[in-house]
């Protein structure tokens, strides 16, 4: 029988696909828990850079709010923000002190800004400026706030600041609504 006649090509391809499905199912079984664990570890590590004292955290899937816990007490909240940078979205993690009045700090999670210019937003010299700043004072210095923009990277700097401002307004706003109702 020629291997190109009749239904053989169809059957052969189907067999190959079945073998592939079995192989992938097995791999998924081996790696599934590891991947969940790796993602958890990544989140924990990310939060721990803002809250060095952290022992554990809670995550609320509806609001996207992390509550950071140490010694059984909440020591702060964290949530994600997004800035519109020069090279695309900048993902930022914001940490708030427990009273929600000032910032614990921020961390850039992903960014595609220009290396050597905008990418300086990941430097400690820029990010450390956010530590302890009151939520009302998160603004570039020229707009009356406490944050100095990076020389030559105004768009990236203000993308971070605007992203942080927006996210804080959104989070605090939704918390107040939640508290009143």
């Amino acid at each position, binding site marked *: 029988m020629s291997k*190109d006649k009749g239904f053989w090509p169809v059957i052969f*391809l189907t067999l190959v696909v079945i073998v592939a499905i079995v192989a992938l199912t097995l791999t998924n079984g081996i*790696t599934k828990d590891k991947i969940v664990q*790796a993602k958890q570890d990544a989140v924990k590590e990310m939060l721990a850079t803002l809250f060095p004292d952290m022992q554990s955290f809670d995550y609320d899937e509806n609001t996207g709010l992390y509550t950071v816990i140490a010694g059984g007490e909440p020591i702060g909240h964290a949530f994600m923000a997004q800035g519109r940078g020069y090279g695309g979205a900048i993902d930022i993690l914001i940490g708030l002190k427990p009273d929600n009045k000032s910032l614990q700090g921020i961390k850039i999670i992903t960014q595609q800004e220009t290396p050597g210019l905008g990418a300086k937003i990941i430097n400690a010299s820029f990010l450390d400026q956010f530590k302890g700043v009151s939520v009302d004072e998160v603004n570039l210095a020229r707009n009356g706030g406490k944050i100095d923009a990076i020389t030559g990277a105004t768009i990236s700097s203000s993308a971070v600041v605007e992203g942080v401002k927006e996210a804080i307004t959104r989070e605090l706003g939704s918390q107040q609504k939640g508290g009143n109702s």
Partner: protein
Amino acid sequence: MSSFAGNFTKGIVRSNPTFVLLLGLCPTLAVSTSLDNAIGMTAAFVFVLVASNILISLIHSLVPDKVRIPVFIVIIATLVSIVDLMMQGFVPALSKSLGIYIPLIVVNCIILGRAEAFASRNGVLDSIADALGIGTGFGLAILLISFIRQLLGTGKLDLFGHHLFTIPGFSDNPVAILMLPMGAFLVIGTLLALFKWMGVTKGD
């Protein structure tokens, strides 16, 4: 075994996938910003290429001609998915920095090219030699590009968190453009011209 050695070495210089065949340039250009990325990419790439060459050379006499390409693609895609899942599970940091370029190995034309041009016409041993040779050629090329981009683009060399080398007085003001996509084109273009001029690679 001379054909084994011959099939191995031809991939390194004479038909180097990056500098001679000019195949698979998309991932090469995109991830060659650091030596870590280059090594991770090479490992993933060599695994997929060797495994796909082995499987395809084993079954090639059974594969109906009409569905040849779909069968190869299913095999390659399965192998890539396995690598992707393994990386996410066991080396999450590397998986994050290589990002979309691991799934994109599926459409890396070097792998389908070797399946079609070599593995589907040769035995297992020769196909392994071919895969290792082409993989080595790819690895050397992407390492060379990454080395130049990382060294001149950041002024220093790091390898998996270990600091290797800093160019004194240069790291404050490196050639940052080399870290951008356009830097990849500049580096690869210069290397191609250089190799041709030196007579390492021959034009047709």
